[in-house]
């Protein structure tokens, strides 16, 4: 225990003496958290619409103004040429072209019983398929609203059978306003503390190898577990400290709720960090240069992050990817931190994750200690 104390003292002196690394460790994550959380939304608020109105009737104008009145659509270009509209789609100046054919009003106003149909067209830039789907859904709603208004104002009520309707009410629990920031912040926070902790510990160990000081340590009677713990604890403490900073920022700057028990979260974070720092140390015990550590951990880190479901839903991934997430520590922590903060889940709800993560930590640390060789 005393030996570990001496290692900790030395590590902390080295960390805080390196004036160029300190801001990278402590300021960069805070800045990234403050900025990047705002970026991560699929919420469409701004759809640029190009209008080609060949009917120029009061009905067609009413439809266009209906789009203008919607919070999603911005009608910013208008002409009589569909080709022109398509050019705007190519240059990304428009997301959708609304094309109203001639005779739109005439076809619309016919009384029920005839088969005539008003002609209009939506050309959607579908390079981003999801966005295109949403544009489609939003436009359909606007058009349906427009139709209801027309039927009412022109008194076109059907004489025959009344169509049935299903009213869909919806509510979003845990985040009624669909504020994406309160769910992005925990995710980005997890990424930041993981990168900091894992890289610092992994690079630190292999750096001693490169500098030759590890050889000096290896001829001392220090025990392997003492050395690994000494290399792990400082970065474990720093990562937990940054988690705390991140939560404070989340709470005050982004109003992220903390519904669950904060000590449950800290407990899980503590176990989680042992697991990922264990991975970092393991990588560095099998590498001989900082460069190798860097490339290997970059690969795993990026893969783990993008597979974890932080930015895109896990269910949409193929089965093998979801199975692969069993060994993805990010996936566990992202799930747990959102559950505790936003849903108030308790110890019992996350018991499965706690057990898995403890096992993970045990395995990765044992591997690190086992693979660390006190040889030259």
């Amino acid at each position, binding site marked *: 225990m005393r030996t570990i104390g001496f290692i900790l003292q030395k590590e902390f002196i080295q960390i805080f003496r390196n004036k160029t690394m300190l801001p990278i460790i402590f300021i960069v994550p805070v800045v990234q958290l403050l900025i990047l959380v705002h970026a991560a939304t699929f919420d469409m608020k701004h759809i640029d619409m190009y209008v080609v109105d060949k009917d120029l009737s009061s009905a067609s104008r009413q439809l266009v103004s209906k789009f203008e009145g919607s919070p999603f659509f911005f009608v910013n270009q208008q002409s009589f040429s569909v080709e022109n509209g398509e050019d705007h789609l190519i240059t990304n100046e428009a997301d959708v072209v609304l094309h109203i054919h001639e005779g739109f009003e005439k076809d619309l106003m016919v009384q029920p019983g005839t088969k005539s149909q008003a002609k209009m067209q939506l050309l959607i830039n579908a390079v981003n398929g999801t966005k295109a789907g949403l544009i489609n859904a939003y436009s359909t709603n606007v058009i349906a609203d427009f139709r209801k208004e027309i039927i009412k104002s022109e008194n076109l009520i059907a004489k025959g059978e009344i169509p049935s309707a299903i009213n869909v009410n919806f509510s979003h629990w845990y985040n009624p306003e669909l504020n994406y920031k309160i769910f992005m912040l925990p995710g980005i926070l997890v990424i930041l503390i993981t990168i900091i902790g894992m890289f610092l510990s992994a690079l630190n160990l292999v750096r001693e190898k490169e500098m030759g000081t590890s050889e*000096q340590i290896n001829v001392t009677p220090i025990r392997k577990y003492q050395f690994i713990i000494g290399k792990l604890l400082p970065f474990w403490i720093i990562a937990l400290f940054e988690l705390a900073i991140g939560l404070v920022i989340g709470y005050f700057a982004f109003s992220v709720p903390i519904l669950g028990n904060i000590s449950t979260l800290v407990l899980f974070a503590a176990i989680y960090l042992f697991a990922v720092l264990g991975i970092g140390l393991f990588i560095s015990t099998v590498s001989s240069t900082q460069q190798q550590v860097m490339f290997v951990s970059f690969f795993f880190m990026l893969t783990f992050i993008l597979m974890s479901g932080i930015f895109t839903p896990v269910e949409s991934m193929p089965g093998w990817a979801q199975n692969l997430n069993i060994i993805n520590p990010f996936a566990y922590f992202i799930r747990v931190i959102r559950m505790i903060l936003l849903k108030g889940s308790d110890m019992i709800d996350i018991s499965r994750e706690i057990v898995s993560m403890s096992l993970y930590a045990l395995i990765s640390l044992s591997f690190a200690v086992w693979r660390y060789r006190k040889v030259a």
Partner: protein
Amino acid sequence: MAGENGYIVDVKELTKKFGNFIANDRLTFNVSPGEIFGFLGANGAGKTTAIKILCGLSSPTSGEATIAGYNVYRETEKIKQNIGYMSQQFSLYEDLTVYENFRFYGGIYGLSRKVIRKRTEELLHELNMEKVKNRVIHSLPLGWKQKLAFSVAIIHQPKLIFLDEPTSGVDPITRRQFWEMIYKTAQDGITVFITTHYMDEAEYCGRVSIMAEGKIKAIGSPNDLKSQYDAHNMNDLFIKLVRN
């Protein structure tokens, strides 16, 4: 203390192979407590490989060796408690101060903070370097660093210290001072096991062994060896032995 037969280093038929390459070929020698033992040889003769085995950093392929009575196969951690080691690669932490380096290494050898403070004072006093106690290693000249590294290696008062080419790359005056430190250490009862390729330094050793191509070619005191092989000085002797 020492092994059964009184030797602090007792090596028999020690062999280390890397694949087909034989780095150490059946080395047999021993060192008595308090000796200054020189381990000579050209670069690539197998000195460093042997020293790493004796320090418990690597395992021999075959043969026997005990250090301070402990077996190099099974009791490497006990060996490490009893030895000091200074490698040819400089190994103090550049970003720590002199005292912080002493404290760290003292700490992992299990010394108490009080003892560490006392030993640091003593060692710095001997080096006449009390005033650099709080200087960062990085800012010191190489010769000073080497002397400090030596002091750090003996902070826990080991029975035996291994010095692997400690004087390579330092100026003649520092080398001289370094040897004064070695003598002082030996007087204090610490056995010194030193490798070098400076043949003039070999004269300072009590006994030397000369290695070439993984084998020990000769072993004995410098004077005995010189007369035995009819050589004027160690350099002459070395060339004669290695040429054959």
